C-alpha cells in the first residue's frame, strides 16, 4: 500500500455506548468508514444520530468500546492518553461551530498561526504561515485581532490555525452553523484549499451548502451509517 492509499482516518465496526442515569445508550453501532486524504466529507443526520460521538472519536478525544479507529495509520484504541494527545497535536486539526470558540481574543491572526506552529513543534517563523495567510486570503488581516474580523474571516483564521503542519485530518463541527450564506462560500473555499494540500476534512453539518460542495456525504441515523 502506498502512502497515498492510506486513509487519513478509518473506522472499523466502531461501537460506543454511554451510561446515562444507570441505563446504557448506544451512540454508535458498528460504524465503518474511510476518509481519504484530500477530500471533504460531510457528515449529516438528525440530532442524536451519532455525528458528534463519531467526531469525538475521530478527534481522539474519546476511545471506542469496540472496533478500531486509525488516524493516519495509527491505531487510536491502543494509544495511552499521552499518545492520543501527541497524535492530536501533530496530526489533527479542530474547528468548532462558534467562531469565537476557535480563536483567542488576545492574539492577532498571525500570532494564532505562530502559536499553532509552536504547538505542532514548528518554528514560529515557519514559511508555511505566510503561505497559508496568502492562500486563505488573510494576508492583509494578519495584524488584526478576532473582534476586528467578520465571522467568515474568523472561521478562515480558524481553518488556517488548524491547518498548520498540515494535519492528516481536520475535524469540523458545524463550521458554518453561525455564518450567513454570503460568508459560507468563503469557508468552503478555504476547505477546498486545505483539501488541495492533502488534508482530509470531515464536517458534521446541517447546512446543505456544505453537503453540496463536499466530495462525499455520509448520512447517519441511530448510530449507524445509513448511506455514504
Amino acid at each position: 500500500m502506498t502512502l497515498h492509499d492510506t486513509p487519513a482516518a478509518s473506522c472499523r465496526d466502531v461501537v460506543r455506548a454511554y451510561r446515562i442515569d444507570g441505563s446504557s445508550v448506544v451512540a454508535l453501532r458498528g460504524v465503518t468508514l474511510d476518509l481519504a486524504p484530500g477530500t471533504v466529507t460531510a457528515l449529516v443526520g438528525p440530532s442524536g444520530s451519532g455525528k458528534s460521538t463519531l467526531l469525538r472519536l475521530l478527534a481522539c478525544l474519546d476511545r471506542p468500546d469496540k472496533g478500531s479507529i486509525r488516524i493516519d495509520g495509527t491505531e487510536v484504541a491502543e494509544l495511552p492518553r499521552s499518545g492520543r494527545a501527541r497524535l492530536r497535536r501533530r496530526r489533527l486539526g479542530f474547528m468548532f461551530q462558534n467562531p469565537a470558540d476557535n480563536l483567542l481574543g488576545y492574539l492577532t491572526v498571525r500570532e494564532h498561526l505562530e502559536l499553532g506552529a509552536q504547538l505542532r513543534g514548528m518554528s514560529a517563523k515557519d514559511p508555511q504561515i505566510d503561505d497559508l495567510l496568502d492562500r486563505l486570503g488573510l494576508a492583509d488581516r494578519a495584524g488584526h485581532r478576532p473582534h476586528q474580523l467578520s465571522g467568515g474571516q474568523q472561521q478562515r483564521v480558524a481553518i488556517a490555525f488548524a491547518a498548520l503542519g498540515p494535519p492528516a485530518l481536520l475535524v469540523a463541527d458545524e463550521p458554518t452553523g453561525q455564518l450567513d450564506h454570503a460568508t459560507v462560500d468563503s469557508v468552503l473555499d478555504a476547505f477546498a484549499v486545505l483539501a488541495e494540500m492533502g488534508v482530509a476534512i470531515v464536517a458534521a453539518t446541517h447546512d446543505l451548502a456544505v453537503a453540496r460542495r463536499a466530495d462525499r456525504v455520509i448520512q447517519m441515523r441511530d448510530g449507524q451509517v445509513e448511506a455514504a
Partner: protein
Amino acid sequence: MAAAHARRLTDQAPVVHRPRWWRRLPWELALLAAAPVAWLGLSDDVTAAPAGGAGEVAHVPARLLVVPILVIAGGAVLAGRLLAWRLRVRGLRRTPARPAALLAWRRIVRDAATTAILAGATAVPIAMATYGASVTDSIRTTADAELRMVIGSDVVASLEPGSPPPQVPSSLDGRATALRRINHQSLDNLTVDVLAVDPRTVRDGVFWDDRINGPTLTDAVDQLTAGPVARVVAWGHVPLGPATLRGVFEDLPVEVVDVRPLPGMRGGYPVVLVHTDAITTDHIFAVHQLWIKGDPAELRDDLQTAGLPLTRIDTIDDLRAGALHEPVTFTFQYLVALSIFTGLIAVVGLLLYLESRTVAHRRAYVLLRRLGLRPAGHRWALLAELALPVLAGLAGGLALAHGLANALSDAFDLDRNQPPGAILATPYLMIAVVSVIALVIAVGAATFAHSRIARANPAEVLRDTP
C-alpha cells in the same frame, strides 16, 4: 442668496474639542505634586516631642506619614501607567519561543492596563509595609545608638577606685574591653573627660555601628599614638592641633588630630580618646572600667560571678526605660497594619478578577488543550501572567520604600542634639516576608485560576464547549 444663507446655517465647521493641556496630564501627578506641599505645610522643628508631663506622649510629625502615602499612591499609579505604555509600545516586538510563554506574554501585553493595575496594587501595600518597617527599625536603631553612645556600650562595669587594671574574664573574650575613665581633666582651658583605651581590644567592647555617617570608630582608633606627643581624638567643642592635657597626672603634650562623635560622652564635657600607653602614671581618680557588648541581663550575672571589685554597673536597659521612641514606632506599626489591610483588598480584587474571566479562559483552555497544550504548560502560562506583574509590583514597591526611607532618613532621628544622627536600617525581615507573600499570592492565584479553568473537560462534545 437663500442657498448661501442655508449653507451658512448647515455647513458649519465641526467643533474640535481640544482638551486643555493640563487635562492631558496624568491625575496622579497631583498626588506627587501634593507631597512637597504637604512636607512644607506640615513641617515641624521637632521630629518627636518627648512627653512633657503627665498624659503627654511623644508624637511623630504628620508629614512622615502623609508624604510617603502621597508618594506611594502617586508613584505606584504613575509607574503603572508608564508600564502599560511601555508594554503597548514595545511589548509586541518579541515573540517568545515556547507556546506557554507566548500565551503568557501576549496576555500580559494585550491586557496591559490589567497588568499595570495588578503591579500597582501589589506595589502599594509592599511599599507601605516596607517603609513602615524601615522607619520603625531606623528609629529604634537610631534611638538605641544614641543611648549606647551615651554610656559607650551595652554594659559598663566600673571598678572600685584604686583597683588594679582588670583582666577581661574569659567568658567575655571578644566582646569586652578594659579601659580607664578619668573625668574632669583639662585640655588647655577646657574641661574634658579622658578615655584611655587599648587600641587592640577597644573595638571588642566599645559600641559602634558602621551605618553611622562619617568615619568609623576604627578610623578614630587607628589615629591614636602614644609617642612623645600623643595623638588623640576628641568629641565636643575642641580645637584641632597641639594642646596639653593636664590633671592629676603629669602634663601630657598631645595633638588633637580629629574631632568626631565618640561613645562615652556622659557628663556633658567633651571626651578625649587617648592611647592607654600615653598615660603611664596611675592615680586615684582613674576609674577602671569594662565596656561589654551583649545582653545586659546575662552580663550582669556574669560580672557578679567574676569576682571583680565592682562599684557600679550601667546598662543600656537602664537608659531605655522611659525612652520616647516606642510610642513613635507604634505609629509606623499602624502603617504596616494598614498595608496588610490594603494587601488583603488587593488579593480579594485579584481573585474576583480571575473569577470573572474564568469562562472566557475556560473556552480558550479547551481550544488549547485540543491543540495539544499540556495542563502544565497552561498552568505555567497563568503563573507567568500573574507572577510577572506581581514581581514588577514587588520590585517597584521595594524601590519606592527604599527611596522614601533614604530621602526622609534625617527625620528618623528623634533627638538631633544627640549623636550619632539617624541610622537608616534596612528591614530585611519585612523584605523577606513581603517577597514570600507576593510569590505565594502569585503561585496561589495561578493555581486557583488554573483549577477553575481546568474543570472544563476537553473531551466534551465540541459544540458544548463551556
